């Protein structure tokens, strides 16, 4: 297969957004008749690469080649004309229009200046028959399941472009059977000589269907290899890598386990989100949560915090049963959560540092018991000093702070309410190395102060550095727990990469 020239290749692609390098001289090539997996954690640069390939973004430097000829992709339509078809993660179709419209919009067959519906629907039926889909093409797309919509999107992309097909997480919302159907079609398309780029976070699927793997990490190419030559454990280490320069020595795991663990979650779960799990956390303990993207890390945090109410299970705090159905319930129980995406879920960019810090405490006290400006200033000053939040002024809008300092503001917000259990989802993502170490020091300090912490991270070295225990997740379920001296990166990676218990069908 290697002797084939590349169908689509990028060389030395760089792309920066304000103050951060999303792609740093990345090379990537797709050959005809191969399914090429593109892997990486959130923020690794996958989406940016796809957007460069499809003309949504223009690269700062580097070349895109099709059949060895350099091209510049102007926009999505140009990409389609060049033969690059894309199916985005959220099926980007028009659910309120008919299946035929969805397949042919923008290129409907015309007769006498009008759309020739009859011909369009006939062509739509013929097109879908190739995919063994027999739909009523005149009815609305929204009548069909997500899987069928996905296939319709693929049919459209292949019919329009027909050379390279890019699939962004196509299986994220499909069940096993639907995934099988999709894979059968992908194999058929591969044998027709298409180059397929397959983005996923399900490693099993990579080994099931892909010929070649390319891994991105922090905007850089981490590695590329034939699937058959890359053991899973190496793939995992490529993805998670080692980014922390100095792993601080962890003394926490040498301490004896606390006798009583105040927070106990039994059989908590939510269908289609996270399998039921047990989790106990004691005060003065840091529980690390390791797993790949989509393994159920964030889902666990959401269930614990009541953002997605659990379907099953009980929660006990200090031995008393409590019910958490909403984030308000969780806050009332003394929980705090720093969400994964601080830009959209965490900070309120236009409010000042002071206002952001005081938000949660104000909400906690109720709107009628207003914090006076003086109290707010004192509080904000205290945290700005304690955490060394670098800002010229506590009245400065938070959006002007660096990522690390924004993260500290969110931490301060929750700490102002004196939580007993603090859940941190990817607290160090997208912040520089210095701030990184400070956040980790802060986690240690909070833990020493007797707080219970649950920290989710995709950086294994970091988890190793602060955890008392580590829970490993895979395929939307908690798969095991490591404690004491077993907490070493190799063990965690082995658990993440372990074969699924169920035989893959």
């Amino acid at each position, binding site marked *: 297969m290697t002797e084939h020239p590349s169908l689509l290749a990028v060389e030395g692609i760089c792309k920066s957004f304000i103050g951060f390098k999303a792609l740093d001289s990345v090379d990537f090539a797709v050959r005809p008749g191969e399914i090429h997996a593109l892997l990486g954690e959130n923020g690794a640069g996958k989406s940016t690469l796809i957007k460069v390939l499809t003309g949504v973004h223009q690269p700062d430097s580097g070349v895109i080649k099709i059949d060895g000829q350099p091209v510049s992709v102007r926009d999505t339509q140009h990409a389609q004309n060049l033969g690059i078809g894309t199916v985005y993660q959220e099926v980007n179709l028009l659910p309120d229009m008919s299946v035929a419209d969805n397949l042919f919009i923008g290129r409907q067959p015309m007769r006498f200046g009008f759309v020739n519906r009859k011909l369009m629907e006939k062509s739509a039926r013929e097109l879908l028959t190739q995919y063994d889909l027999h739909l009523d093409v005149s009815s609305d797309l929204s009548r069909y399941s997500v899987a069928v919509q996905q296939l319709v999107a693929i049919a459209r992309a292949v019919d329009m472009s027909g050379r390279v097909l890019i699939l962004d997480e196509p299986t994220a919302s499909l069940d096993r*059977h639907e995934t099988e159907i999709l894979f059968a079609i992908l194999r058929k398309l591969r044998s027709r000589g298409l180059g397929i780029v397959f983005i996923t976070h399900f490693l099993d699927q990579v080994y099931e269907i892909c010929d070649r793997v390319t891994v991105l990490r922090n905007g850089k190419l981490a590695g590329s290899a034939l699937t058959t030559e890359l053991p899973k454990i190496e793939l995992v280490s490529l993805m998670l890598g080692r980014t922390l320069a100095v792993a601080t020595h962890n003394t926490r795991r040498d301490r004896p386990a606390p006798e009583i663990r105040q927070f106990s979650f039994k059989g908590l779960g939510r269908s289609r989100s996270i399998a039921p799990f047990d989790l106990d956390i004691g005060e003065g303990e840091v529980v690390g949560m390791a797993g790949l993207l989509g393994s159920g890390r964030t889902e666990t945090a959401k269930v614990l915090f009541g953002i997605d109410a659990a379907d099953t299970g009980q929660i006990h705090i200090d031995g008393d049963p409590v019910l958490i159905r909403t984030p308000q319930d969780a806050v009332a129980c003394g929980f705090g959560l720093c969400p994964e995406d601080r830009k959209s879920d965490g900070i309120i960019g236009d409010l000042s540092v002071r206002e952001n810090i005081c938000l949660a405490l104000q909400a906690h006290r109720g709107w009628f018991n207003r914090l006076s400006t003086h109290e707010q200033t004192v509080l904000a000053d205290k945290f700005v000093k304690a955490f060394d939040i670098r800002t010229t002024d506590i009245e400065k809008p938070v959006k002007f702070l660096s990522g690390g300092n924004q993260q500290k503001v969110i931490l301060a917000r929750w700490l102002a309410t004196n939580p007993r259990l603090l859940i941190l989802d990817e607290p160090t993502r997208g912040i520089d190395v210095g701030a990184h170490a400070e956040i980790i020091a802060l986690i240690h300090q909070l833990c020493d102060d007797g707080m219970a912490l649950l920290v989710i991270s995709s950086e294994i070295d970091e988890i190793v550095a602060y955890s008392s225990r580590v829970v490993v997740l895979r395929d939307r379920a908690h798969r095991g727990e490591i404690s004491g001296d077993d907490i070493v990166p190799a063990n965690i990676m082995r658990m993440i990469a372990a074969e699924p218990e169920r035989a893959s069908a």
Partner: protein
Amino acid sequence: MNTRLLPLYATLLICIIAYAVCVFQFPMMFSTRVAGNLLTDNAFLGIAAVGMTFVILSGGIDLSVGSVIAFTGVLLAVLITHYGIHPLIAFAIALVITTAFGASMGAVIHYLEVPAFIVTLAGMFLARGMCFVMTTDSIPVNHQFYTYLQGLYYLLPGGGRLTFIGCLMLLIFAFGIVMAHFSKFGSYIYAVGGNRTSAELMGVPVAKTTIGIYAMSGFLSGLAGIVFSLYTSAGYSLAAVGVELDTIAAVVIGGTLLTGGVGYVAGTFIGVIIQGIIQTYIVFDGTLSSWWTKIVVGILLFSFIALQRLLVLLSSKRTATLTKP
């Protein structure tokens, strides 16, 4: 059954019931005279509502409609009465200006990414202000061509008159229906209203479509202004205040989703007729205040918005539980 059609059926049912109630109380209302007048009296509203249907289908709004109607009326009056220009030429001038006006609002909405509400609100003030720049008086239009057009009608059996402007409205509705369902532009409008991002990724020319939609709304508002001018034989700066809201009401009562992407031009026609029937009823009754039209329209609007929300919720629930094909 297609839940999409449910609001349309509901509108049709309400229209028939309303008419039946009217006829039951005032048997005189069951005549071609009333039917003919219904079309004539609401001709300008209907024509503007076709434009509004497309705007709302695309997920936008056009608040400038009423002002553009008044602007056209005043412009025609000034051109014909003060400058002695032939009405046909004046019509052409008015349509060119209103179409360009609509297109530029569309361009601002698309390229500057300003919400349609704000842009067309500015357009509304601008057009209304331009009326007062031209004149503050009510200018009558006395031209033999006007008299000729006003005298054009087809005598229906039973003595009703299908007037020129009534026919024009029916024609525009027919044109609107054909365009919505049988032209590329029509499918683009639904696509942009359904999901703008998707439409863009699927290669729909969003810029052209958006500008086209507002240009068309401008054109149809201009045409409605011409019809209004023929209907009243005058141009007055304060005419047609709030007509845009009546057209929005007609569109929503006609079953078009305010969020865009779903709806029918034919529904808007029924929406216009329902408003006309209520007004006719009030005229027949003679004791009711004409504000009752607004009250009934308000109640209808509320119930239709509630109905739409309900249907959207039901259909999303159904999709969620839908199994494999």
